[in-house]
């Protein structure tokens, strides 16, 4: 395998936080509101908490295979054949993840900002940008994430702050929303919204081992959980649970409500910057994951010649759905509700298998000693 480059603690943290929080700008807010009404703000904290636990268990699996990334662990436990099949599955999922995210982004952009621009043009432009970033490699992705995280969070917080005069704090009543049982149920299922953290398991060797990714993953999950919760809360304060489920992009709608005086109004276009930046990083990260995964499975030394073919595949997959509602429907169900199955539950099953059959990495004993 080729050398991927290294990421520092802050770069990895920024990278994971940025790609996890990018969905806050999409349909995630409204769809969650549809499910759990006024309890959405703490439902996401439950998702975050379950994600932390599942990620911690995944890290336990990685501890048994020091120096190996997720694919190495799969091959170590399931054997080469099934390991490769699972690698291919993850690769296909990464292609699907990138495409559906990209399409969701393009649809939103068309609705709110560029209604007359052909979607293929927007997709092509995004893919060209992703091509450049992916070509430059992991270190560059880490560096831009570390540079852009603070501006994006500040942009987000400023929207919440500027919309404050219109908050109706009674809108979160009844506090328990649809009831604790359903909230916990949905909360657990929606831990899929935080599965981006598992990228750390793939990039473990570039980051500096299990201890480091454990710290990065958990701190990034906590920050994202808090940001999600705040945005759900603010969104509920403005729209309430009834109107809240109707909007396409909750946060964009929230920003349109900002009004201070005749001069300071309709600043939602500025939100585009804080919205587009994480989307580009997310798309690039998805493509990078596909390439790394594919190169790992077939032992390809340099992933760069694969960039263009993969971009073409992603372009085709992005163009497949008939309309945006279909995308939102599929995206919501598969990615935001059930993606935890392959990305969290499967590694946990593997951990159980490895414990039962006493399977460990080559360097496990040496490391322990």
């Amino acid at each position, binding site marked *: 395998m080729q050398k991927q480059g290294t990421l520092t603690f802050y770069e990895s943290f920024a990278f994971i936080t940025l790609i996890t929080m990018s969905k806050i700008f999409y349909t995630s807010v409204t769809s969650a509101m549809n499910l759990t009404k006024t309890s959405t703000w703490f439902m996401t904290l439950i998702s975050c908490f379950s994600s932390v636990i599942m990620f911690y268990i995944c890290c336990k699996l990685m501890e048994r295979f020091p120096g190996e990334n997720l694919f190495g662990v799969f091959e170590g436990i399931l054997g080469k054949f099934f390991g490769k099949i699972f690698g291919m599955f993850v690769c296909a999922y990464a292609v699907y993840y990138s495409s559906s995210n990209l399409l969701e982004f393009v649809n939103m952009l068309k609705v709110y900002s*560029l209604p007359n621009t052909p979607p293929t043009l927007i997709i092509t432009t995004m893919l060209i*940008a992703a091509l*450049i970033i992916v070509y430059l490699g992991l270190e560059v992705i880490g560096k831009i994430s570390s540079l852009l995280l603070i501006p994006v969070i500040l942009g987000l917080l400023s929207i919440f702050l500027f919309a404050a005069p219109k908050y109706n704090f009674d809108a979160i009543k009844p506090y328990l929303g649809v009831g604790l049982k359903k909230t916990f149920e949905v909360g657990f299922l929606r831990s899929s919204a935080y599965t981006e953290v598992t990228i750390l398991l793939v990039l473990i060797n570039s980051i500096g081992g299990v201890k480091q990714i454990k710290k990065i993953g958990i701190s990034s999950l906590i920050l994202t959980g808090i940001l999600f919760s705040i945005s759900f809360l603010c969104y509920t304060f403005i729209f309430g649970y009834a109107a809240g489920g109707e909007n396409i992009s909750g946060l964009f709608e929230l920003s349109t409500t900002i009004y201070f005086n005749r001069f300071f109004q309709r600043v939602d276009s500025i939100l*585009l*910057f804080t919205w587009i930046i994480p989307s580009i990083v997310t798309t690039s990260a998805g493509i990078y994951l596909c390439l790394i995964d594919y190169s790992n499975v077939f032992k390809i030394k340099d992933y760069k010649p694969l960039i263009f073919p993969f971009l073409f595949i992603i372009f085709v997959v992005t163009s497949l759905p008939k309309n945006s509602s279909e995308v939102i429907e599929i995206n919501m169900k598969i990615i935001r509700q059930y993606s935890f199955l392959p990305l969290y539950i499967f590694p946990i099953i593997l951990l159980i298998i490895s414990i039962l059959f006493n399977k460990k990495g080559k360097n496990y004993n040496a490391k322990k000693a």
Partner: protein
Amino acid sequence: MKEKASIFKKLLSLVTYTNNNEETFSLRNPLVEDTKLPPYIKSKDTINENQPIKTDLSSNIKFIENSFYLPTNKGVIIRRFNLGNRYEGFLVYLDGMADSKLSGEFILKPLFNLNFEDYLSSEDLENKLNNVVEVNRITKANIPKEIISLILNGDTGIFIDGFKNYLFCETRGFEKRNIDKPTIEGSVKGSQEAFTESLLSNLSLIHRLIKDTDLIAERLVLGDRCTSNCAVIYIRDLANPTIVEEVKRRLNNISTDFILNSGILEQFIEDSPNSIIPTTLSTERPDRAVSHITDGRVAIILDNSPFAIIVPVTFFTLIRTTEDKAVKWQYGILLRLIRIFAVTVATLLPGLYIATTNFHIEMIPTALLITIAQSRENVPFPTVLEVVFMELAFELIREAGIRIPGIIGNTIGIVGALILGQAAVQANIISPILIIIISFTGLGGFSVPDFNLSYGLRIIRIIFITLGAFFGFFGISLGLVVGLALISNINSFGVPMLSDITLRKKQSSKLLRVPIWKEEFRPKEIQPIDERKEETLSRKWTNKPLGKLTNKYNKKGR
């Protein structure tokens, strides 16, 4: 066909004048066509440039004549003499480069005043001449390559029949410009001296500011055909040796005929030739160069170039000046913030204007939107075309301002901009608001302290105009992220260009300024040998509290 051609020629001759008696000149390639070559084209007699010279006079005169194509070339002077009717020899120097008064008064005169009572061997004579000639420095040379180089540099060579070496006396005396005020990098509180074209003067300017025995100024010779002297300047126990070695390695491995100036040299040694952002810093200010050298960076000064090249640099080094530190830290912060704002404006403003007016009209407050709409009411062109037209006009005025000589050049910028702008607005070609946008952008560009960077920003601005015109804020955001990715991928002599803000390490070169007594460390991104610049408590006097102020000379107190 031939007939037709001749008819055409006849017709052409009716309207044009040709003198048939004149021989027409046509260019020939002497190396391809069989033509009689002039003497100066003929190849030199083969001399092994690394073998010592012969000791007899006639061979040496022939060697000089052959090397400099005498007598066709009148630039090299050979002055033959006979000392005490015993020792025949000659003096050789390059006319104009060597000071002829100096060679006449302090070399020839003492030689002719010598008394030769006994016959001296060539070694003894060499020693005697060494003590007689009244110049500061005498260099011995016996390798043809060295001899030619010393003559070309303005030294005067003495050769006497039987000598194994030439004695080269330091007589460099060519005309040079005096040290003047900086013309590009002005300063209010900083030094008012700038580098000149003379390498020695430039080195003296640096030595004057850094009085440190650890300051090293290594000399290298660049260029295969026409050589140029170059100095690599650093502080021995500060600059990272890997950077110093890398600089020397790159300089020593340039294979080109001639390096005319530091701008060309920069292009030969930079890391990313395809990058729009420069990866070296070019300065005409000795104080700016010195502040970087004392931080642990390396300066490269080329002879005949009034600029020092500083390496390695980061993006934010390019927008810092020595002025920032010459004022209180609060003012320094303000200056740096203004400069960051200037870079942003110079890069993004026209693109943002196009994006806002074409794609995001809703975000413009109604009153302002009406003003813009009114100002554009009679303008027939789309905003993009307006911006492109004004950008072109602005660039033309700027370029013309530089090229037009003397006082007119300074005024044409203002007059041209005023008249052109006013006329364009009155003719309804350009809206007044666009004049404001472009002027503001221009001011931003002028506020960037690095000349190369301001060129780079101009190109980036064009890219953002295009992105804004096609995709609005989406395009600009894409451009920003990709631009950041590209810049963060560039290195300057191993140092990433964005290393002072990417938080890879705890950096000390702050984006904004801190009080001068709190700048304890040198920039960590360049990994200097000695990181600490000052002690934690650099203002030691603050240890002792100020006592009660009394006036013991007060009359009443006495």
